[in-house]
């Protein structure tokens, strides 16, 4: 695929991510913070987000499988995940955290377990999509094509 086609594909893919609500304008903000002095800023932040999320999802699964469930602790983890997903523009992950916190407040175990599945699902989706996005970007840059403006 040549640079022009790749560029077109990247633009269309990005538009889709926004229109389907996977990403919001915070992601654009991150792109605007990237420049020659920090050329990998977005990838770096998103990588941190992936690491942080995986840690939190593990902790959540562990906490929800305890005999005595510590809802405060669970709420704290969800709050963290909501925060970092918001900071990278991972809109659907952020939204799924909101209902999770409601179930925590209500001390509803079933609700929490369902929410955990939902959050995991949304996280898995956005991880996939962002990896595809970065792959497209990298291939475009390898052809020497100019990246689309955010």
């Amino acid at each position: 695929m040549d640079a022009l086609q790749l560029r077109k594909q990247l633009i269309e893919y990005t538009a889709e991510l926004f229109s389907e609500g996977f990403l919001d304008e915070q992601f654009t903000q991150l792109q605007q913070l990237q420049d020659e002095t920090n050329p990998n800023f977005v990838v770096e932040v998103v990588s941190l987000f992936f690491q942080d999320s995986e840690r939190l999802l593990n902790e959540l699964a562990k906490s929800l499988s305890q005999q005595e469930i510590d809802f405060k602790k669970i709420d704290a983890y969800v709050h963290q995940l909501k925060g970092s997903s918001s900071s990278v523009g991972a809109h659907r992950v952020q939204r799924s955290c909101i209902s999770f916190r409601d179930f925590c407040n209500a001390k509803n175990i079933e609700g929490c377990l369902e929410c955990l599945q939902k959050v995991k699902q949304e996280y898995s989706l956005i991880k996939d999509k962002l990896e595809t996005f970065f792959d497209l970007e990298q291939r475009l840059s390898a052809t020497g094509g100019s990246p689309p403006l955010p």
Partner: protein
Amino acid sequence: MGWGERYDDAGEEVREVHVLAVDDNFVDRKVIERLLRSSACKATVVESGRRALQLLGMDEEMKGCCDLHGSQPKVDMVITDYCMPGMTGYELLKRIKESSALREIPVVVTSSEGIVARINRCMDQGAEEFLLKPVKLSDVKRLKDNMKRREAQPRKESRASAARKRNLEDEDSFAGPSSSSSTTSSPVSHGDRPLI
């Protein structure tokens, strides 16, 4: 030394606005650091209120400022997250405002939740502003502009006084009355006039 002073071509130190950012979330720390540096601020980013107080030269136990041989960098602004384990952003704000050495430092509180009671609490405690997360470039720009405007305040008044003085001198040299009515606004409102 160690705080990244910058020097211009003449070897003179160029002082950037130094912001101390506090957030327990490490994704947020990376983003705020980049936001600040993109806005030509010097950024020191820490993960807790306790660490922030240490950097500001305040020891938690001593409840006072111990100047470690003047090695504390001058901090022009603190931006802190509200919800943090251990010391919350509100508690950090309170400690700073209760310290005679630190109370002049503007403190901005950030939060993912715009709860009215929370906002009021922070503003009552002397917060400069309460920002909803995620913090944007435009927020940082506005904070920086506000700071600069505030620093320029004393100079602004003397320039306006000088202008007023010139107007009065001009009036003396005019033959006719009332032609200069638009230039003789009352002294009380001069602070509202735009900078000349």
